[in-house]
């Protein structure tokens, strides 16, 4: 199963200040361990929210809001995508990460089997497929 690990922003990350060399080295070593264990599928650090934007949806109305955004602790500053055997394993890996403060969140990624459970007869998939076919034939016309 896969987990996304969401690293939250802090003052420094929002100010665009890069972590010092010691932390970068420790993080590099941790990433290397993840790769060697076959756990790491992907991972990226994100630029401050001042370089981002939001689009707010309200019925048909779409409003663009430029960053930065205020609620620093709720912002995402980076992520990993991990492949592990269990949630507990993801937790144990995360405990080994070289963070000194803040909270890091683990979220499980949906897999095909999860959809199969909520769609035991395959009826929803079937409808979607038919809809897709219809759209395709319309586009051709």
């Amino acid at each position, binding site marked *: 199963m896969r987990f996304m690990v969401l690293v939250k922003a802090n003052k420094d990350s929002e100010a665009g200040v890069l972590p010092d060399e010691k932390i970068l080295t420790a993080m590099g070593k941790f990433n290397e361990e993840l790769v060697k264990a*076959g756990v790491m*599928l992907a991972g990226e650090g994100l630029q401050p929210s001042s370089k981002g934007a939001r689009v707010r949806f309200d019925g048909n109305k779409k409003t663009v809001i430029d960053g930065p955004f205020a609620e620093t602790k709720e912002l995402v500053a980076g992520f990993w995508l991990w*492949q592990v055997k269990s949630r507990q394993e993801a937790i*144990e*890996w995360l405990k080994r990460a070289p963070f000194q403060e803040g909270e890091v969140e683990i979220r499980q990624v949906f897999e095909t089997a999860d959809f199969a459970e909520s769609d035991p007869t*395959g009826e929803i*998939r079937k409808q979607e497929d038919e809809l897709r076919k219809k759209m395709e034939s319309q586009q051709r016309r």
Partner: protein
Amino acid sequence: MTSSAAHRQIEAIFRIESAKVIAAVARMVRDVGLAEEVAQDALVAALERWPESGVPDNPGAWLTATAKHRAIDLLRRGQKLERKQEEVGQEMDARWAAAAPDLETALDENVGDDLLRLVLIACHPVLSTEARVALTLRLLGSLTTDEIARAFLVPEPTIAQRIVRAKRTLAEKRVPFEVPRGPGLAERLASVLEVLYLIFNEGYSATAGEDWVRPGLCEDALRLGRVLAELVPPEREVHGLVALLEIQASRLRARIGPSGEPVLLLDQDRARWDQILIRRGLAALERAAALGGEPGSYFLQASIAACHARARTAGETDWPRIAALYELLTRIAPSPVVELNRAVAFGMAFGPAAGLELVSDVTAAEHAGRKANEGIQYDENDIHVVDDQKQAGLGAYQEQRDRAQERQKGAQNVEPGGRPVVGQEGEQGCTHRRDDQDRPYHQRAGVGHGRSPRNRSSA
């Protein structure tokens, strides 16, 4: 923390650490069976102590030290002393003394080599293929015998016995715990790659069924492949295999239709392909290509899979390139299935006549002719393009699985004709029907290219 939560935590830690613990102890005692035993003892000790004392700062070092102490105890107590003392007694004491002051550093430095030795010995050619598969999942994949048994749909005691026998064979044959040099290494690695490939295939061919446990084998194989790619010296085929598995795995969600029926490659909704795995696969392929040297069979198969992965629509597939790659593959790994695929690819690239020209085998001609005439009926086989020996190995697993499935399903799952359903053919048409079993493996309807007419619902 409740005791069951503590146990789950300790078991998760053990899963992360166990291969490294076994590998480190095996280097010391030169006995994989004993190493695995004492690693289990260390787990038991952790389950007893950690809930009270808390998890130590470096749980891996704690488990390894505990396992080593236990091994020394066992050896000293003489249970295995006579057999082993001369071999390892003094050396072990010296190593232990040397390692003790700075155990962590010693562990870090050696862990890669130890793991490589462990994977090589688990896949040693003195063992049968099925023993290698079980031992690899047990020692490197940290699966329990129960998990392996469920994945392969065989009774748990069968797997337990298989592992016990494998360990005994390694001890009896005095297989050294080492990394051979030069051509010896390439040969041993080939055996490892074959095992990972078989594990992956076992999961891959199962995904068209109802059982969602076994596709976990694809993940296990991929993870072990990724681990191996970091362990070994630059070796093209290792990255080639990883590339192949990543790209094949990227299609797992797309190859089953709404009612569980297999969807052939060219009919798949490419939006459902996993782009992360495709990117990883293409990166592994680049890594393999950069290493240079003669392209091996996995590298070529991965290159073919990559052609499909790069095409945004089935119509954009680079068939001339695929045909050229199959041409190379026929030279280094010829088999009826490869020949047939080459013919199909030539047919797709240069018209049906070009494909037919290449087909000499009468049966093959029949299939390919039909396929070429149908135009877009090509059915990618690159995961199953293997030599006959590998297919025989795969066939043996599938037969076992089919029998087990029949036992499990009993009378519930019977077709109107009264015949038990023994599995559905996947995109690769890998599983087969019971009435095929008397024929040579590669001629069975389900192998490689073939789909029997009544299984064409997805076309």
